[in-house]
């Protein structure tokens, strides 16, 4: 339960940071970093997500249970992505006809 009231200043700092990061991701996309482009894009997106979640959604001040719930959600999305990718990525690794 939030006893503290975050200051308008705190929120403004986060807000401006989010705008800057949006500009950053747009500009970085115009530079050829090869396979790192997608990494940078996702990294910046994750940072923005964390700023919104921790500060705007008050996750910083939330109970341990809430944090576990959010972490669990991210983990489960990860399971969906990783296990599915494991199939598509490993197709053709085995020199079996038709596979």
């Amino acid at each position: 339960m939030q006893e503290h009231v975050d200051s308008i200043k705190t929120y403004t700092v986060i807000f401006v940071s989010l705008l800057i990061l949006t500009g950053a991701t747009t500009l970085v996309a115009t530079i050829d970093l090869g396979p790192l482009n997608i990494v940078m894009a996702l990294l910046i997106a994750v940072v923005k997500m964390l700023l919104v979640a921790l500060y705007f959604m008050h996750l910083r001040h939330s109970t341990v249970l809430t944090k576990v719930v959010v972490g669990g959600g991210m983990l489960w999305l990860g399971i969906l992505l990783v296990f599915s990718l494991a199939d598509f990525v490993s197709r053709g690794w085995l020199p079996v006809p038709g596979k």
Partner: protein
Amino acid sequence: MDSHIELPELQEQFETPEQQREVSTLGMWIFLVTEIMFFGGLFMAYTIYRRAFAGAFGLASNTMDVWLGAANTAVLICSSFTMVLAVRAAKIGSRKALIVFLILTILFGSVFLGIKAFEWNTKFVEHHVPGPTFHLEGASAGDQGPAQIFFSLYFTMTGLHALHMIIGEGLMLFLLWEAYAGRYSPSYYTPVDIGGLYWHFVDIIWIFLFPLLYLIARHQH
């Protein structure tokens, strides 16, 4: 009966307003986890197909208007800013500030949806809607099919997001109505709090949609 406190907003099954608040917040967070998995299926399909068709996806993504997309991202971030200020206003009992910030949030949300509608219309005009009329200039014949898959993901992902925005606008209007009627105070502002959680979540989805849909292979320009 027992220690049940008599308060107008306290529902029967709860012992204290504190419990009711905690329960409502936990419930909303769990709902947001279900939303993570709901959108997650689309992100998974996107991941698989982008990996398989990197070239076609790059060509298709380049037809998006990057500056409009970035501007829209900024608009949504502004709406999140005004939303969290609205929650803060409710928490400290500033009814007027709450109303102003809710109105601003709704306005920013509407701007976002307006720009989205414009973008969709552009796609229709340019024949970038998957189906028999689809044609992507500059792409080979072999890339036309995968490019359609990009756009099917574009329309379903942004469409689902827009649907959540519209629901969010409805929620905000409800909160505005209740705020105007003086229903919220420092001891009871839970609907504003959890409405804010929902709104921020929808913003986070867009934070991922923007780079994934608009920023593929931009360095070629």
